[in-house]
């Protein structure tokens, strides 16, 4: 048994949660869009810029070496956090979107050709759709998507049928940002591998909520963003199996990623991970992301999940009493996501009235338009929880929603 989280105590580490909006205490339930950051992370970034910033890798001076050590140490933290075999399998990117585009353009152009199929799912975030559509258009491949059942689970039958057709790649979301659905990453990977597909997993909403072990899962690529896992903006991670990464062409050219540059004789590239990290990296972001992951690990993944499930369950229970309530995605509360529409109201109206009561939720399509199409809705209201949310906040949110609905129906 993991020790339960003391969210009230944890909150003290998040100064932003003390603020008011529209004259009301802020209730921040938009964790899935971007998490707030604990002081430890904010201070790590500040500390770096105040006391040991320098460009990395290229310098003989002490400051540059100190910065390089911290930067590379952060890489090792990420490696261990997601269970990668080697630290060179961890590539820094500008974010999850950047990472998926890297794979699409580097691995994709080499392995996906005319007539090939790229398999995704109907619950993907645009970040895991558009790069594949762009690639497909360029090389003459096509994108297919596995159907989603009414409850928000993947349609296993449809998946089996579509895998049977031999797609080159299966790219899927570990945890859906809209539905909260937790896909069985390991089983899906095995299934896809058995069908001969390479596997990319979008772990943006998994890493903040649960333990992830890429070697156990067995996937070929795994990606996530720093800003959703209590880390800073502008930094993300691409994990790839060494063999695959080594065979891939670099995507961006520039400093750091070269071995030797010559205009007459052409250019040779550096080894992993630098081959994929052209230019000055987001040094402070990488270092602070390392701090964020250690901080999160310190809470205990079990405790985090228990806490967030408790909040989601309480929210669902409270909201259920509202007439016309329709939850979108009902398979799991593990990821702390509660998404819904209410008959006769528009998500934008609910969101606006919640905001004026101090409650921050996200409304709209959550960058999952194909999913909205699937459910025939323009968008949802989504409350999403992090470690810093409390049962009391959930109650405030539920009461505020009830009030909003009353006003709208009035």
């Amino acid at each position, binding site marked *: 048994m993991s020790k339960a989280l003391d969210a009230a105590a944890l909150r003290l580490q998040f100064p932003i949660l003390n603020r008011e909006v*529209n*004259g009301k205490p802020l209730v921040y339930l938009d964790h899935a869009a971007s998490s707030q950051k604990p002081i430890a992370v904010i201070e790590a970034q500040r500390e770096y810029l105040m006391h040991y910033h320098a460009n990395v890798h290229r310098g003989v001076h002490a400051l540059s070496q100190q910065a390089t050590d911290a930067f590379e140490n952060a890489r090792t933290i990420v490696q261990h956090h997601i269970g990668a075999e080697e630290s060179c399998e961890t590539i820094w990117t500008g974010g999850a979107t950047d990472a998926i585009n890297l794979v699409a353009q580097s691995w994709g152009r080499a392995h996906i050709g005319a007539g090939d199929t790229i398999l995704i799912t109907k619950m993907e975030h645009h970040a895991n759709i558009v790069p594949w559509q762009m690639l497909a258009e360029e090389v003459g491949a096509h994108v297919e998507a596995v159907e989603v059942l009414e409850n928000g689970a993947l349609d296993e039958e449809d998946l089996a049928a579509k895998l049977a057709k031999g797609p080159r790649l299966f790219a899927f979301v570990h945890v859906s940002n809209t539905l909260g659905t937790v896909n069985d990453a390991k089983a899906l990977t095995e299934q896809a591998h058995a069908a001969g597909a390479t596997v990319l997993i979008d772990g943006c909403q998994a890493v903040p909520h649960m333990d992830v072990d890429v070697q156990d899962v067995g996937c070929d690529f795994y990606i996530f963003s720093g800003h959703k896992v209590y880390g800073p903006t502008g930094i993300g991670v691409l994990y790839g199996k060494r063999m695959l990464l080594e065979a891939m062409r670099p995507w961006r050219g520039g400093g750091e990623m070269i071995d030797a540059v010559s205009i007459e004789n052409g250019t040779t590239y550096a080894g992993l991970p630098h081959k994929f990290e052209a230019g000055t990296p987001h040094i402070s972001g990488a270092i602070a992301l390392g701090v964020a992951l250690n901080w999160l690990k310190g809470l205990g993944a079990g405790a985090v999940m228990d806490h967030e499930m408790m909040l989601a369950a309480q929210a669902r229970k409270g909201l259920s009493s509202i007439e016309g309530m329709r939850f979108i995605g009902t398979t799991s509360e593990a990821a702390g996501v509660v998404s819904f529409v209410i008959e006769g*109201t*528009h*998500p*934008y*109206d609910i969101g*606006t*009235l919640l905001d*004026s*009561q101090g409650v921050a939720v996200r*409304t*709209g399509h959550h960058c999952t338009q194909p999913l909205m199409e699937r459910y025939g809705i*323009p*968008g949802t209201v989504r409350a999403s929880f992090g470690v810093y949310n409390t049962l009391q906040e959930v109650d405030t949110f539920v009461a505020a929603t009830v*009030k909003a609905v009353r*006003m*709208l129906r*009035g």
Partner: protein
Amino acid sequence: MSELLQQRQEEIAEEFEFFEDWMERYEHIIELGKELDPIAEADKLDEHLIRGCQSRVWLLAAKDGDGNVQFRADSDAIITKGLAALMVRALSGLPPAVIVQGDLWFIEKIGLDAHLSPTRANGLRSMVQQMKHYGIAFQAQG
């Protein structure tokens, strides 16, 4: 004719004067939204849609016998519709020139100026722009 615009804005400003918080303001905006005549489904064409809002807004304009512009608006979100109702109330039936040149000070006065920022999802800014565009178009027609 711009006195009419002035007068309408003063009326609206007065109406909003005593609201103490956003919930009260929205309550009134919702009321206005409900009172606004809906646009027939047949008229909700894509060409009347205003881009850039989480909710959809349809805006129609026509010149009446006196050369004034008659606006109709609707939205699938009721708060957005209420904002549209305010705009229609302020501008509908005015001559194109007034619509084009009119300073819509009431928006700031009643505290909705934040809603005018280009980054807002409610479409108020797009509505105002689109109404001005209609004004320009009708002006050009003479």
